[in-house]
């Protein structure tokens, strides 16, 4: 039987998606359901003086109006930061309370203060306008850079500082810098982004008074985790009385990791009114209240010798957490950021210092790449600048500082198990025709255009987060993944996974893996995820972990099935288990060549004993049934890496940047399905290029979101991109049996510095902040003209 792993198996999920048969949360309608609208703060920062719901309660069709007071009365808990971070001085991070409905203070535009529940959506909307809130508007803090000097947002949190965290060794770095021939320094703004999943958030909460069970259908990347948080911290219901279902989910990019206010409030309120409640975000609510991403202000320095050897690196970053610290809010700018700060390079001394600050803006949390794009952007901009200042070719300079032997122990944290960065660089250069650039540049010049080329070599730590690795860093949470493989008596297989697919094609790729492991046709394998009532507890999907962690759990559970199958076959065929081999779905006794198919074995496991032959096929000690579970906690992260090369052409008269060529050469380890990987790379690149050239979430000084719709927030479109030139090198991960590394975030990590390096190259080294909009580039072109004419 040919192996399915590695082939372009068509996606099992496409038929239902392409024919409109997907079942998203908003498609779910329950009998007798009500509709919810949230009343939200129009102010970025205010105290609530009075909240009057009388008129709203009398409005037509209204079932209930609930506020922060009822939340507090019922002791419903708030939203939490999932990862505890300790400051350099040893103090614990400071997190404000974040009640699901604000009672006393609101801290960003969109912060919910009440839920209005009515018989119809129109009536709920009408009534919501009648909720009277008397706000005392306070001065908002909106600037990341200035947040520490602003008014105190949360009582008791001095300087709006959540933590001041250090990774690395300041003294060693100082010594390295003292020895340097040259120090390259850079100031960077990593622009704030809005994830913009195609499907807005939604939830439908149901209460069954007979079983006293709440069921929440919600747009989540990790339903089990949501249930845990809602139960343990939200106090909504004990876990066994709370079922969370995340059906088809239309994109997450990290924005659907969090448990949100609406999840908690709707679940709690459904029980209170003893009716189902449906809430679907409008796009403008998504802009305001989905978590945002990035938003760093960084100063970084690289110490180098004159022949281009990197000696030391420092990174001083202020990271904006927004109004509250949410589930991955604190880990994103620390453990997902700091360890990757030195990039792919062998730099003997380094530190990263992060000050995480609160502002009156939407909470900032993990968004595709989470921490690693920010880290990569900084180091790769610095390296590019170093190449310009040292006059060393940008690819040569990088190669010079690549590690050459693996496993490679980095200065800061990671031990990278495998890779071949030089091979990746060489292949990328070839794919991009790096050599031919100068000719193309001259052609552009002849047309009056500026052409630039940019390079990025990146690595990332994904497959988050092996408990052993993160615990050793003093981080309080480890992550593993579960899988359960269940045979039916008649031989089909259901695989339950704790990870969740919201665009990652698990239904196909996980089935490919199980099909290879078990020798069962892929049509006979179903992947089940997204329901806390189905399968065991799992951690969910983010951080490119589904395959490298969740996929391995499936492999391990399958291996257990095979082991049992061998024992059963041995008993059935009166052989020694050690003499039974398993291949292509058949158990073969090597000595006699007798065999049983895995289907026959499954049948026997469920229906032991055949008529007239009362002998059980089950060996002593084995129970009936064929079902195995695995909880897999990897020993390390996995480390995809690669080199990307971009070429842009700039019209100096308008500043318009045209992305002419984009080459991505990635090492994702073993590839399960090349077509699916291409999809992931394309999507990641689109978002990364979006950050570099188009996307920007902008607040004004009063904390109003200026880019709250698609008229003002630029989502990149297909015509913004060239045909992507995608290729791979492959070194297998040595830390997992599949040799896989992960591919979900690479594009979003590598593209921003690649494109910006190209833009800045075209501009003769002039810095431009992301996004490189036409006006910013136009200004830079004018400066260039001025300085050129001075020089001439």
């Amino acid at each position, binding site marked *: 039987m040919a192996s399915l792993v590695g082939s372009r198996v068509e996606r099992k999920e496409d038929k239902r998606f392409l024919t409109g048969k997907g079942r998203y949360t908003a498609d779910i309608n329950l009998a007798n359901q009500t509709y919810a609208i949230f009343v939200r703060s129009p102010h970025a920062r205010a105290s609530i003086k009075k909240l009057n719901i009388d008129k709203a309660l009398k409005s037509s069709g209204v079932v209930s109006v609930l506020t922060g007071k009822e939340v507090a009365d019922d002791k419903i808990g708030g939203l939490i930061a999932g990862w505890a971070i300790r400051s350099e001085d040893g103090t614990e991070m400071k997190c404000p309370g974040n009640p699901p409905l604000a009672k006393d203070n609101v801290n960003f535009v969109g912060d919910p203060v009440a839920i209005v529940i009515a018989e119809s959506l129109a009536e709920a909307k009408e009534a919501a306008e009648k909720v009277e809130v008397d706000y005392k508007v306070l001065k908002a803090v909106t600037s990341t850079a200035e947040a520490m000097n602003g008014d105190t947002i949360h009582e008791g949190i001095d300087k709006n500082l959540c933590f001041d965290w250090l990774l690395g060794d300041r003294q060693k770095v100082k010594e390295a810098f003292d020895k340097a021939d040259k120090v390259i320094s850079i100031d960077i703004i990593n622009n704030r982004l809005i994830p913009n999943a195609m499907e807005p958030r939604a939830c439908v909460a149901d209460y069954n008074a007979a079983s006293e069970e709440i069921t929440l259908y919600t747009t989540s990347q990790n339903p089990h985790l949501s249930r845990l948080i809602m139960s343990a911290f939200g106090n909504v219901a004990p876990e066994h009385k709370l079922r969370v279902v995340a059906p088809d989910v239309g994109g997450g990019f990290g924005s659907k990791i969090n448990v949100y206010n609406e999840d908690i409030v709707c679940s709690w309120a459904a029980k209170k009114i003893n009716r189902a409640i449906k809430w679907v975000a409008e796009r403008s609510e998504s802009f305001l209240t989905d978590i945002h991403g990035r938003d760093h202000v960084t100063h970084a320095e690289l110490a180098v010798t004159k022949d281009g050897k990197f000696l030391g690196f420092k990174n001083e970053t202020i990271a904006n957490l927004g109004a509250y610290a949410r589930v991955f809010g604190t880990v994103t700018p620390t453990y997902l950021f700091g360890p990757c700060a030195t990039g792919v390079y062998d730099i003997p001394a380094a530190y990263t210092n992060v000050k995480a600050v609160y502002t009156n803006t939407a909470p900032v949390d993990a968004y595709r790449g989470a921490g690693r794009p920010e880290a990569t952007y900084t180091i790769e901009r610095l390296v590019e600048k170093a190449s310009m200042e040292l006059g060393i070719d940008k690819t040569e300079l990088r190669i010079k500082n690549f590690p050459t032997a693996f496993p490679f122990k980095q200065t800061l944290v990671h031990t990278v198990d495998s890779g071949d960065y030089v091979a990746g660089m060489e292949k990328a250069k070839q794919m991009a025709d790096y050599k031919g650039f100068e000719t193309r540049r001259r052609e552009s010049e002849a047309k009056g255009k500026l052409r630039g080329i940019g390079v990025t070599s990146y690595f990332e730590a994904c497959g988050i987060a092996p408990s052993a690795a993160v615990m050793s860093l003093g981080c309080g949470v480890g992550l593993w993944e579960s899988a359960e493989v269940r045979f039916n008596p008649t031989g089909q297989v259901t695989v339950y996974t704790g990870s969740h697919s919201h665009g990652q094609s698990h239904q196909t790729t996980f089935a490919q893996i199980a099909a290879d492991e078990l020798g069962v046709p892929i049509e006979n394998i179903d992947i089940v995820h997204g329901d806390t009532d189905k399968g065991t507890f799992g951690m969910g999907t983010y951080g490119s972990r589904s395959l490298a962690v969740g996929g391995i759990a499936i492999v391990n559970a399958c291996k257990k099935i095979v082991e049992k199958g061998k024992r059963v076959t041995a008993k059935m065929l009166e052989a020694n288990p050690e003499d039974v081999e398993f291949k292509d779905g058949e158990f073969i006794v090597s000595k006699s060549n007798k065999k049983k198919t895995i289907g026959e074995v499954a049948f026997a496991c469920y229906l032991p004993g055949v008529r007239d032959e009362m002998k059980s096929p089950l060996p002593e000690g084995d129970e009936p049934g064929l079902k195995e579970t695995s909880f897999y906690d990897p020993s390390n992260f996995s480390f995809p890496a690669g080199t990307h090369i971009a070429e842009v052409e700039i019209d100096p*008269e308008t500043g*318009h940047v045209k992305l002419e060529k984009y080459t991505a050469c990635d090492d994702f380890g073993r590839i399960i399905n090349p077509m699916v990987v291409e999809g992931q790379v394309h999507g990641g690149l689109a978002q990364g290029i979006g950050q570099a050239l188009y996307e920007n979430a902008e607040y004004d000084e009063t904390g109003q979101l200026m880019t709250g719709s698609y008229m*003002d*927030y630029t989502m990149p479109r297909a015509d913004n991109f060239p045909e992507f030139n995608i290729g791979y090198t492959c070194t297998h991960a040595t830390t997992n049996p599949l040799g896989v590394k992960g591919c979900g975030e690479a594009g979003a990590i590598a593209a921003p510095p690649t494109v910006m390096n190209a833009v800045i190259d075209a501009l003769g080294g002039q810095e431009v902040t992301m996004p490189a909009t036409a006006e910013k580039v*136009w200004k830079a072109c004018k400066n260039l003209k001025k300085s050129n004419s001075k020089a001439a």
Partner: protein
Amino acid sequence: MKEFNYHSAKDSKEASKLASSGSAFLAGGMTTIPSMKLGLATYKDLIDIKNIKKLSGIKVSGKSVTIGAATKHVEVANSKDVKKAIPSLSSLAEGIGDPQVRNRGTIGGSIANNDPSADYPSACIALNATIHTNQRKIEASKFFKGMFETALKKGELIEAVEFQIPEKSSYQKHPNPASRYAVVGVYIAKYKSDVNVAVTGAKSCVYNDKEMAKALSGNFSSSSIDGMDLDSSDMNSDIHASAEYRASLVVTQAKKAVDAC
């Protein structure tokens, strides 16, 4: 969205009879519906004019192109007749928004709305258009009054827009990357005796740049406007573009338009 009454008018007369101070005509709905959904506008009555046959269609004569008010952008973009008579007009229509918008939005709705960064108003100015309403004919130069303001009276219905076919013409838009409306769009049309340089996006309302028009009437070459330093004091400034940048774009786009003629 608040409740409203929906009417479908069978002819212009009925449409204007139904109109009141609390009503709007519903053409493509591409402006009206989103503003109602966002609570920016509320109407008691929406009067659908899409079913009025007379309002749709394209007629080309030797001298002019006449487009019915309810004709969709996509129809103008795809019309062979328009492409032949005034190619720049069909390419303007092709560059409006996205396919969804082009499949619904109409020329009448666009110019009645008179968004400061809409494309069609510049075509009207550049191509010496006449706006035919159910009451009168209005010259384009007298039609666009100010930001979202036109010469239309309450209940007055645009029936068609008549464009004069120029010798040559070109529309060059620098689009807002998010909405694809014009940050600045310049429509240049050359007639036997004069040149129009219609500018949209730059100021609160579309206008004919007399200074550039004069320079180009003397010598129809981009060199005659190269380096022109326009006064940016009354130009728009927002998160997408500063006034200074817009002023520069006007010249750049005008040069591109001349070169493309």
